[in-house]
């Protein structure tokens, strides 16, 4: 094979389209190994082809996302308008009043049907602030050699299937009792399952190990919030703010909502 500047793109095309003989294939692969410039040309030509094939899929997904975003923004912008019309002192038209009444009735139904049970179950502030990050055991190198257990634990927890996650967390901690991430996951899991006493005990245990990051304290506060024990939650949150510890800004925001 005689490869030069004049024929290299033709040869590249042959290679990418699978039209090369076995003998030429070996030679060309050897060229690719030894010639960095040719290897880069090959990468660009191959990726250009891939990019062109991917473009319609990408474009369709972008259009769908743009449409969803636009619909959502429109809904958000419309809501205050409807509410604003329901002002007893203003002169509203009957049509506007009708729309307002429909919107309010729909909101009430939504509140009773969807949000109210959640709020009763979890507490408004808890729901708003308890952002639970996914567990990451595979990247950091799990302390337990049982990969299936580690993977199942991580998947169940990250899928928020706490009933499924809890026995696996216990099994994991039986081998690695001081794994901070899993201890925290245990506390959060118990809190999510409304086993509050056990959850507080789990957070207290983390505290006894004297960890550098006070992440457990943030969730301990969330656990109190979930039970509407505002005073206990405030005390923990104030400490987070005072010591500029984990989530202290969110703690400050949350405290402000109690004023």
């Amino acid at each position, binding site marked *: 094979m005689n490869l030069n500047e004049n024929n290299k*793109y033709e040869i590249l095309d042959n290679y990418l389209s699978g039209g090369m003989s076995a003998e030429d294939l070996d030679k060309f692969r050897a060229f690719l190994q030894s010639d960095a410039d040719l290897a880069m040309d090959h990468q660009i030509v191959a990726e250009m082809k891939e*990019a062109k094939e991917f473009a319609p899929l990408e474009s369709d997904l972008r259009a769908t996302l743009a449409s969803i975003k636009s619909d959502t923004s429109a809904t958000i912008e419309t809501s205050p308008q409807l509410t604003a019309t329901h002002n007893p002192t203003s002169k509203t038209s009957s049509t506007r009043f009708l729309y307002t009444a429909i919107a309010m009735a729909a909101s009430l139904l939504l509140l009773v049907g969807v949000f109210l049970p959640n709020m009763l179950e979890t507490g408004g502030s808890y729901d708003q602030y308890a952002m639970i990050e996914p567990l990451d055991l*595979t990247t950091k190198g799990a302390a337990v050699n049982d990969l299936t257990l580690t993977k199942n634990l991580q*998947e169940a927890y990250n*899928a928020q299937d706490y009933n499924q996650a809890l026995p696996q967390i216990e099994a994991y901690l039986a081998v690695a009792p001081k794994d901070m991430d899993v201890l925290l996951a245990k506390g959060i899991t118990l809190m999510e399952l409304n086993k509050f006493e056990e959850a507080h005990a789990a957070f207290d245990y983390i505290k006894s190990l004297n960890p550098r990051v006070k992440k457990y304290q943030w969730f301990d506060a969330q656990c109190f919030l979930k039970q509407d024990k505002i005073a206990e939650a405030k005390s923990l949150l104030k400490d987070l703010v005072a010591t500029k510890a984990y989530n202290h800004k969110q703690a400050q925001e949350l405290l402000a909502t109690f004023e």
Partner: protein
Amino acid sequence: MKHSDPYINALLTNDQRGVKEIYDTYLPRLEAILGKMGCSKDEAWEVFQESLIVILNKAQKPDFQLSSSFYTFLVSIAKFKWFNESKKKHKKNVTIDAIGTLSDTDDIMESLLKLERFQLYQQKLKELDPICQKLFELFFDKVSLRDIAVELGLNTENAAKQKKYKCQKKLIEKIKKDVIFKQLL
């Protein structure tokens, strides 16, 4: 092209209801997570969108396997994306605690870079003369060289072939000269 994970499937089939569910379920969570890393809501939206494109790109490969939950996968990619973006936009490195949540972190970074290279290729294509642009458009639409020759007013199939290689050479030179390309390797 059907996948067992419903969210991956929604992306692959561009199912509007499924994509809306991903949007409703995960965008607020991503905003909260990335917000702690200095990412605004608008930026989080961009990161969210680009992360889904990365997932789509990976998921369309026949050998793709989801080794974690969809959420974990999305958050990992989004963190990397934001890490890259904040370096570019704000000229600063954000600290990502336990960067990513997957074992194949190099793979995620490579996927992000590859999609950025894709964008650069598109941009460089548009800088070519109109004949080369047309030629590539026809070529990627799998139009035969004979028909390309007719379309472009060239005498023979071989003339179309030679024109294609010349255009390809110009394009590759433009790409390789671009400083951004070197950063994307």
